[in-house]
């Protein structure tokens, strides 16, 4: 089945220690998104790629970076995680960047910062 895969499902890191979360997709979608979701809150869009074109949301901290080496993979790098970065990180894809296009989500990576 075509899907969005996130690894690892659970990640524990130490305060200030860089961490990378990964996302892969077999849907061959052009757009990949990264969301941050804190407990009992709506997902918050951090950034997205449309093909190789990177788009950062205005309020995304500089501490968060992303890479998309090819169509299938996208990475979220947190350079110096703080306690406030503990959250569920969701990767999503869509076929194109259209208003009516469904976003397909991965299962998420729950990040714990000690």
């Amino acid at each position, binding site marked *: 089945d075509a899907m969005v895969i996130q690894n690892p499902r659970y990640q524990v890191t130490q305060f200030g220690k860089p961490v990378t979360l990964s996302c892969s997709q077999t849907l061959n979608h052009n757009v990949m998104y990264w969301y941050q979701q804190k407990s009992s*809150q*709506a*997902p918050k869009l951090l950034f997205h790629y449309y093909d190789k074109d990177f788009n950062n949301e205005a309020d995304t901290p500089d501490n968060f970076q992303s890479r998309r080496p090819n169509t299938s993979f996208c990475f979220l790098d947190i350079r110096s995680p703080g306690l406030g970065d503990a959250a569920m990180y969701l990767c999503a894809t869509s076929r194109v*960047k259209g*208003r*009516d*296009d*469904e976003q*397909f*989500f991965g299962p998420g990576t729950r990040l714990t910062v000690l």
Partner: protein
Amino acid sequence: AQSVTQLDSQVPVFEEAPVELRCNYSSSVSVYLFWYVQYPNQGLQLLLKYLSGSTLVKGINGFEAEFNKSQTSFHLRKPSVHISDTAEYFCAVSWSNYQLIWGAGTKLIIKP
């Protein structure tokens, strides 16, 4: 700024009873509307969407929603809930571009 409001943070309901989860948005100008479901410790899955046409939209798992332009609402309904419907439900709206504006979510709690 456009906004999406889900007034109920939690909705408890008995199994096999009907349920309505409410969603209101700030502007009726050219909107696309979505309901996503999030089961515990999982990602989000699309339940249904309204793009145009019939205002009553049917989705997966027996859910449906009605687009009401005059009331700027898109409430989600199910005539009879099951324990497996326990999840958090998010309403999302797309206005002028690709970006979804999300509601805060409603947790559906099924009581046996």
